[in-house]
């Protein structure tokens, strides 16, 4: 059977990526293609009084200016799945649409809901002409009062995601606990900022649409286009071979896709849309700001008696997104009395969406910061406090875990880091002019899975091709699926070709929620297993006797060109286990005593995420999550001007993300974990857990170094002055 730690194979698409051969969506330059440039609203709330397009239309190369004044009415959008923004829980996503703003079909009326709304598009023969044309469009508005401040409307929060969870009597238990922490934690708006801008190339041929889309959810895009444009699904062909990072921002169909497709139809030629970095900050989702109260009550031995986690986050009226920051609350520690709820305050801001570890990432910042505060209140080691409250079964429903190796993560991480040498006293550790701080935090993320299908075809020369719709945004899907197929069939990986990123292939779910390996992997495994059995059956032999050479031998002997098998993998209806990945981060920060810039000197992070298919690509994914976590802790914040109703630092110079110089030593420990219950291939998914817990581990280290508790991210220099 398969080893718990898969071999560190180089990426199968590596050569393409280092030679410029990987074609991303906008790099499909079609014959006679035109360019579209968006016009964005400049007020947060009101109506468009007029759009003057005369100058734009006269401008060189401009083909059309389209807005609600001349656009045709589109069909109603199929909305996001019911558990909007939380992939994994919903019905087969390929049967659902994914239009991000169901209440705002582009160009359907003159209403403005937020700054940056796409209100018109200019189509021209070149990029330069389109951009110039868009500058010349003059819009006037009738403004109405806008809702811009979450605090001001806090009383109007709605539990949109039906998040309320109660167990025991949290308030009474908290009131009578002998040691308590009750604090407010805040996380800011953040933007995914994938390096590749959201982009499309759309081409119509009669009533058939071909769409190259930088998407992590092609089957839902197909469904959405079919409904909006009133054509059968079979007429819509979505291609997404390489995606230049997504982190959740490319899981929904955003307005520019609809507008680009509409424009291509109206001007009767292929249209390319490549959003500017500035535009990406408005109509493509963000992680919304949260305000979270965490109240913890414990007995003197550190046993948690009560946990209250509540607060609010931002959304708007045109999307259905809800940031579910209390999701980890129900999974992380054994507590008998709990109350958790995350209401949504609807404002005139752009639509938020899921961003790497939605819910878990901001939620665990609050919980794990509070746990550190509790440890200090108890005069107890923070790691010991977590061990005392280890959840042996799922706290939410009492179900047993399919597997859980959190204690091993704590032990191996602490050992490698040298945690036992920590002097708990704040400001006690120094190195030259630097204050040194050590902090830790737990990590967790659910093991999701959705239905997925795959087809495996073996040719008489013994080579195999796997066909499945899925996506490759850098997670290594093409590589690990090739490995999984090779291993299941018993052939060298060089004989496997993996075809994906195309809606004519068997359907797969959104690549999000850390569930691609589990979902698509189960389908690939099923198809390959079935194929092996079929080949054995053809020759009347036991499948166990099939080896790498059998395929060629048997197919030749029976004069077959090829043999194929398809598998539709479905998660079980009733899950007897709770399935969840866990981990732990240990961080050392160094902070200059006079100029308190925080530097993350070294980190040791241990994870148990079920079976690891490829040790090399898995390590990279963990690194990626952790490094975004460093960004979240120290750098990332999209500033919102409450007077103007707009995001302000909307470029790569002012929205800071970690660079090479921000990252020093990061040690990843992959705790081997065999899990036969989570799914047929034993993987839990690792795309998101890396980021969870990084920000609180750093904040806790900052407290240890300086004695200052920063409860609102990011931890910038002025908060430590």
């Amino acid at each position: 059977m398969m080893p718990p730690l898969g071999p560190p194979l180089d990426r199968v698409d590596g050569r393409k990526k280092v030679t410029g051969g990987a074609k991303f969506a906008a790099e499909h330059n079609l014959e006679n293609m035109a360019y579209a440039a968006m016009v964005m609203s400049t007020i947060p709330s009101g109506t468009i009084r007029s759009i003057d397009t005369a100058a734009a239309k006269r401008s060189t190369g401009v083909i059309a200016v389209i807005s609600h004044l001349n656009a045709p009415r589109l069909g109603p959008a199929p909305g996001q799945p019911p558990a909007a923004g939380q992939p994994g829980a919903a019905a087969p996503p390929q049967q659902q649409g994914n239009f991000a703003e169901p209440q705002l079909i582009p160009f359907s009326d003159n209403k403005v809901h937020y700054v940056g709304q796409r209100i018109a598009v200019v189509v021209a023969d070149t990029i330069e002409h389109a951009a110039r044309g868009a500058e010349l469009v003059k819009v006037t508005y009738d403004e109405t009062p806008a809702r811009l401040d979450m605090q001001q409307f806090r009383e109007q929060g709605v539990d949109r995601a039906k998040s309320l969870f109660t167990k025991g009597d949290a308030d009474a238990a908290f009131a009578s606990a002998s040691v308590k922490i009750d604090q407010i934690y805040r996380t800011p708006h953040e933007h995914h900022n994938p390096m590749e801008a959201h982009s499309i190339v759309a081409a119509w041929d009669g009533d058939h649409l071909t769409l190259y889309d930088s998407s992590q959810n092609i089957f839902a895009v197909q469904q959405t286009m079919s409904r909006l444009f009133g054509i059968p699904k079979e007429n819509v062909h979505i291609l997404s071979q390489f995606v230049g990072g997504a982190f959740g921002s490319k899981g929904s169909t955003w307005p520019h896709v609809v507008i680009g497709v509409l424009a291509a139809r109206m001007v009767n030629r292929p249209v390319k849309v490549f959003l500017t970095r500035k535009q990406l900050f408005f109509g493509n989702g963000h992680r919304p700001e949260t305000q979270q109260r965490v109240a913890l009550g414990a007995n003197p031995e550190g046993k948690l008696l009560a946990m209250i986690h509540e607060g609010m986050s931002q959304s708007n009226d045109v999307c259905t997104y809800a940031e579910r920051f209390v999701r980890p609350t129900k999974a992380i520690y054994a507590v008998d009395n709990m109350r958790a709820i995350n209401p949504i305050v609807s404002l005139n801001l752009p639509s938020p969406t899921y961003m790497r570890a939605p819910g878990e990432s901001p939620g665990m910042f609050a919980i794990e910061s509070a746990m550190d505060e509790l440890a200090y209140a108890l005069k107890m080691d923070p790691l010991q406090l977590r061990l005392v409250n280890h959840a042996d079964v799922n706290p939410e429903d009492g179900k047993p875990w399919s597997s859980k190796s959190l204690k091993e993560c704590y032990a191996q991480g602490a050992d490698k880091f040298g945690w036992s040498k920590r002097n708990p006293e704040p400001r006690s550790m120094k190195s030259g002019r630097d204050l040194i701080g050590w902090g830790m935090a737990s990590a967790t993320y659910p093991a999701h899975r959705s239905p997925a299908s795959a087809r495996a075809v073996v040719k008489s020369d013994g080579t195999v091709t796997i066909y499945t719709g899925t996506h490759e945004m850098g997670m290594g899907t093409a590589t690990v699926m090739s490995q999984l197929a090779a291993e299941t069939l018993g052939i060298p990986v060089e004989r496997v070709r993996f075809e994906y990123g195309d809606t004519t292939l068997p359907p797969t779910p959104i690549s999000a929620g850390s569930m691609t390996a589990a979902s698509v992997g189960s389908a690939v495994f099923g198809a390959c297993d079935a194929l092996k059995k079929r080949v054995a059956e053809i020759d009347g032999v036991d499948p166990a006797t099939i080896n790498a050479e059998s395929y060629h031998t048997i197919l030749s002997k029976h004069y077959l060109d090829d043999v194929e098998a398809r598998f539709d993998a479905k998660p079980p209806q009733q899950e007897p286990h709770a399935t969840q990945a866990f981990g732990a981060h240990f961080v050392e920060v160094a902070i200059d005593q006079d100029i308190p810039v925080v530097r993350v000197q070294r980190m040791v992070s241990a994870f148990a995420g079920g079976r690891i298919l490829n040790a090399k690509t898995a390590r990279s994914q963990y690194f990626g999550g952790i490094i975004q976590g460093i960004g979240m802790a120290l750098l990332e914040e999209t500033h919102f001007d409450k007077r103007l109703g707009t995001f302000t630092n909307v470029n790569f110079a002012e929205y800071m993300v970690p660079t090479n110089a921000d990252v020093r030593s990061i040690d990843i420990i992959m705790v081997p974990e065999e899990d036969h219950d989570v799914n047929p291939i034993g993987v839990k998914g690792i795309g998101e857990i890396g980021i969870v817990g990084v920000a609180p581990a750093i904040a806790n280290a900052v407290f240890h170094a300086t004695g200052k508790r920063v409860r609102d991210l990011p931890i910038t220099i002025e908060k430590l002055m």
Partner: protein
Amino acid sequence: MIGSAAATAGLLVAPLLGEEARKNAAATQQADPNAIPVALDVNGKVHQLELDPRTTLLDALREHLDITGPKKGCDQGACGACTVLIDGRRVLSCLNLAAMNSGKKIVTVEGLAGDGRLQAIQAAFIRNDGFQCGYCTSGQICSAVALIREGRAHSDAEIREWMSGNVCRCGCYLGIVEAVKEASNATV
């Protein structure tokens, strides 16, 4: 009004018709009166182009020559994804007008692997998994080539500092440092 408000089985959007469509077609068939001639020497091949003077080198490569190795991450000089080599120096092609580079020797990531053989740095990026999505990779590699040639890859700290103009949102910095170190050792 084109199309109908009802979600019927029929296609809801029709192409622009009649007068407007003819005007549109005519508009785009005219040669751009502002275009200027530019000769770009890319990866050893000279291309004669007629370009809008505002065309950046990056757009000239990507949109006019279909050389899409150089990537557009920000179009503002803040991310490094568009890095190419001009006369051996690393340059942000989004901050350069195409017209400024007539006659200069431009090398993009496509031009690095002579006769199909990868350069040491390209192979090192694969071996050390110095990328995930691959969108920043062309720029990282072009920067690394110049950095090694300039002798700025002596230590991890130096590599980290000098490679910091190339943002990788996938967070592949540790693999990138390893790759640059490995290729640098192979070159010296």
